[in-house]
């Protein structure tokens, strides 16, 4: 059975601490001076926490071999649900704009996008575990891109750009982990860079020159190079058209990221109030549940997207550092788990989960201090929401299993070598 020896205590401990702090912050987020609809959500979160813990335990008990066998079915289910939600999805809560919930008989049962994150990681892991060598050409990357691309497009169509971005986040984590050269990854994201730099002809022109040099250096197949180059040009040309296609609120989000004072009452409001909350917290914070920005409803969406601002306001810089340290510890532990994994599949699962968490933390926390545009994605273990919490817990459960497997098989790491004891 599950022996104490095989349990990765740092992973379990850090996760536990994050869950406790996250839960307390969520509780505080509901403590406002005016009757707030989120006053009692901590109770429901407690329920999700229970469900998540049970499912995490189940995930922990499932052997990676069974998981690997079941992966295509899970992936197929996830994709089907995403297609289903595209037609029958409903919007709710702070994500009312996107029809991302699946409802059965009017009761929302979850966001398939969260399940799809896990399923896609598993599918990606299964795909690359069957290959010995890392992809070296763009053509060889295509299967992996398709695996991620399908859910990415489906989620993006909800439209939930934030969640879609997360798919890119762990795709790159996994691709790097399987040994894809960074320059190839750079070529892969070059169209995106092209899109971002297209706001000015000069910057875009410079980028095209850099890209051309890069292509000459990497020397991919001529056809591939040509395709990449043409896609970049096309992106630069289409940028304006795409920008105009964005909904005004999406445009405003991006604009107010660049300058929140553009419209401080409307779109800039979130980021300004979040920074005021965090900044006024100072070094030691205003005290647990005492944040005035939150209490007086200046802080928007304080239980989901901006929950970290609550922590920043009430716990201060000290609290922020503690939480950030816990997150970095969690990620480093996951990296260690991935490195010591007994098999490529398990290793990639651990890395994928780490990639999901890193993307979420970076984007969510970065957004609260204005480092990132306002993309509504939740903070793991903190934000209110059943599907995501359960997804994170199941992911941690899987990672615990991976760690357990490697410990049980007696891997010990000495100076980067594996030695059978």
């Amino acid at each position, binding site marked *: 059975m599950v022996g104490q020896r095989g349990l990765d205590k740092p992973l379990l401990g850090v996760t536990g601490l994050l869950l406790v702090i996250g839960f307390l912050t969520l509780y505080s987020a509901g403590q406002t*001076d*005016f009757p707030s609809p989120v006053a009692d959500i901590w109770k429901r979160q407690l329920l999700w926490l229970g469900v998540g813990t049970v499912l995490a335990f189940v995930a922990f008990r499932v052997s990676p071999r069974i998981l690997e066998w079941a992966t295509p079915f899970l992936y197929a289910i996830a994709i089907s649900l995403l297609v289903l939600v595209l037609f029958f999805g409903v919007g709710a809560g702070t994500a009312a704009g996107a029809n991302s919930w699946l409802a059965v008989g009017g009761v929302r049962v979850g966001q398939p996008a969260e399940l799809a994150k896990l399923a896609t990681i598993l599918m990606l892991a299964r795909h*690359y575990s069957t290959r*010995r*060598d*890392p992809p070296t050409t763009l053509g060889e990357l295509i299967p992996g891109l398709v695996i991620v691309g399908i859910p990415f497009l489906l989620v993006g169509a909800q439209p939930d750009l934030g969640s879609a971005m997360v798919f890119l986040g762990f795709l790159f*984590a996994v691709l*790097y*982990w*399987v*040994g894809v050269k960074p320059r190839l990854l750079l070529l892969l994201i070059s169209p995106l860079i092209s899109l971002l730099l297209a706001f000015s002809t000069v910057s875009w022109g410079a980028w095209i020159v850099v890209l051309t040099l890069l292509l000459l250096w990497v020397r991919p197949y001529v056809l591939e190079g040509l395709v990449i180059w043409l896609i970049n040009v096309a992106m630069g040309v289409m940028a304006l058209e795409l920008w105009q296609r964005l909904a005004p609120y999406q445009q405003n989000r991006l604009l107010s990221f660049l300058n929140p004072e553009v419209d401080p*009452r409307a779109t800039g409001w979130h980021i300004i*109030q979040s*920074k*005021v*909350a*965090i*900044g*006024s*917290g*100072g*070094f030691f914070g205003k005290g647990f549940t005492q944040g*005035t*920005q939150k*209490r*007086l*409803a*200046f802080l928007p969406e304080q239980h989901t997207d901006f929950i970290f601002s609550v922590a*920043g306001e009430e716990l*201060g*810089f000290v609290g*922020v*550092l503690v939480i*950030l340290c816990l*997150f*970095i510890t969690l*990620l*480093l532990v996951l*990296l*260690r788990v*991935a*490195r010591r994994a007994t098999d*490529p599949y398990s*290793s990639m699962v651990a890395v994928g989960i780490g990639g999901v968490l*890193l993307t979420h933390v*970076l984007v969510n*926390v*970065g957004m609260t*201090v*204005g*480092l990132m545009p306002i993309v509504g994605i939740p903070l793991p273990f903190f934000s209110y929401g059943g599907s995501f919490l359960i997804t994170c817990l199941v992911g941690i459960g899987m990672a615990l299993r991976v760690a357990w497997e490697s410990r049980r098989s007696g891997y010990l790491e000495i100076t*980067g*070598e*594996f030695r059978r004891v």
Partner: protein
Amino acid sequence: MTWQNPYELTHRATAVRAVTVVVFVVLAFAFFRVQVLSSERYEVQSQENRLRPVTLPAPRGLLTDRRGVVLADNVPGYSVALLASSVDSLMAKLDRVSTLLPLDSVQVDGIVRRYVRAPTEPVMVLRDAPFDIVSALEEQRAWNPGLVIRSDPKRRYPYGEVTAHLAGYVGEITEDELQTPEYRNARGGTLVGRDGLEQVYDELLRGHDGVRFVEVDALGRAVRNADEVEVLLPEPGQTVRSTIDIELQQYIADLFPAGRRGAVIAMEPTRGEILALYSAPGYDPNAFIGGYDPEAWQQLAGSEEFPLFNRATQARYAPASPWKLAVAAMALERGLVTMDSKMAMPCEGGMRYYNRYFRCWRTEGHGHLTLFEAIQHSCDVFFYQLGLTLGLTNLLHDAVALGFRERSGIDLPNEYRSQFPPSTEYYNQLYGPRGWTNAVTLNLAIGQGENAQTLVNMMLFYSMLANRRGGAPRPHLVGGGRGEIRALGLEEPALDGLREALVAVVDRGTAAGAQIADLHIAGKTGTAQNPQGPDHGWFIAFAPVENPEVVVGAIVEFAEHGSSVAPMVTRIIARHLLGPDAVPTGPIWSLEMPADSAPEPVPILPDTSLLRGGTTRPR
């Protein structure tokens, strides 16, 4: 080479670890910048976010008469204000109270304008709200957050119309005034003096508003008083004690003939203290409280009688016979005459000057009079000749020196300047160098012509006549004497002579009907020509002659003759000096008086009424 090569894997793990650490260091630094380096700025912003200043209006200072009787005080009142986060939210909130507070679009526009000026402060919706509305709104507070009902003392003028031109009234400060330095400690919505003493002593009366803070949420709903911020208590305005004797003022208001227009001033001559200042018709300043009712305002401002106009300081009349004393004083001062001097020609009901005939008011003539008798009987022919003796240049020079072209300097707002030609250059410009003759001197000599004086300025002149040394301090309603500002420059015997002549006016002369036993009153009647209708009546008197305690002057429009004004003035003097019981009662207008000087207007000049209008000035 497989990607699972342990060496490769460790290599990549190191890279991934480095990237992760860098990401977190960047995040931590961003938080360090916001939470530690800029913490103070955000702390202030967070305070500004949630704390809204609520003005605690300073009660306006009291205005009292010389004995401390209150002329203007404050009574409890309530005002209704709203805290809103945006114009839309303000409109929604206004809509919600509209059943109790019906507002028309003009009022709503005004409220929105006030809101835009100071969106973080409660915007005044209704000043001086009736109590039933306040109590009904109070019940709404629970579901209409942002409603601020505060106690806002309102101004009350217990004497209403009687003191209207003295006390003035208050009104909300305008946007333009907020920019001016004298209102630098005022804020939007502050009540400031609009007329009378309220305006002149506004800074003393206004006090300093206090402020407390309420904590509000993002929707502008007031949560609680912010206890951590100290409440700045309002500093009440100072009590301003005026020199007014309210009993005398009330007496004058009662005595003044109903329906007539005019003004009365009673003044202590040696110190310049105004005891009473009354202008008719009046208005009730209490009507302006709680904002102007546009209709009522229109009625007042548009009225033909100009009730808002202070006839004691803002109306100019031809000074007529009372001004003869000025000509006499100038001639005496220059040593041209004595009280016993006679003029070359006796009065035969008029005199010929070149090709024109100048009448005396008494068609049968006065005969050969001394200066003393000429003053007593107000003989026009005598003064025509005295004016010619004095000469136009001297006349103009001396009159200007005596302040007949100036304001009296009384501490009431918008006093009009009296008008008088500064020099002969004035006539040259008006009619051309040869377009006029010396005949203007004759008109000026009897107080007609290009001469328009305010009552208060004439009062100043009669104070000089009354006072022992022939000087007079600035007339004022608040504060102590401020030294003499004008003097006649006459020796005491000459002054005594003039006073005796004035006594003779009341005893035996033109105002003989006005004499009251036991009182030695000196005074002079006058009838000012009025091209627009019946003549205006003047009477200015002082008593007791030996040691003057009061000067009272009155002008009554369309009173026909000054003699009819005289009994009123002497009664006011008696009321002041002898007390309420010694005053003869009975209708004052039934007294038959000999007519005073109102000679037929001699058409020397094309139109002198222009001057009286106050719009034409010598350029």
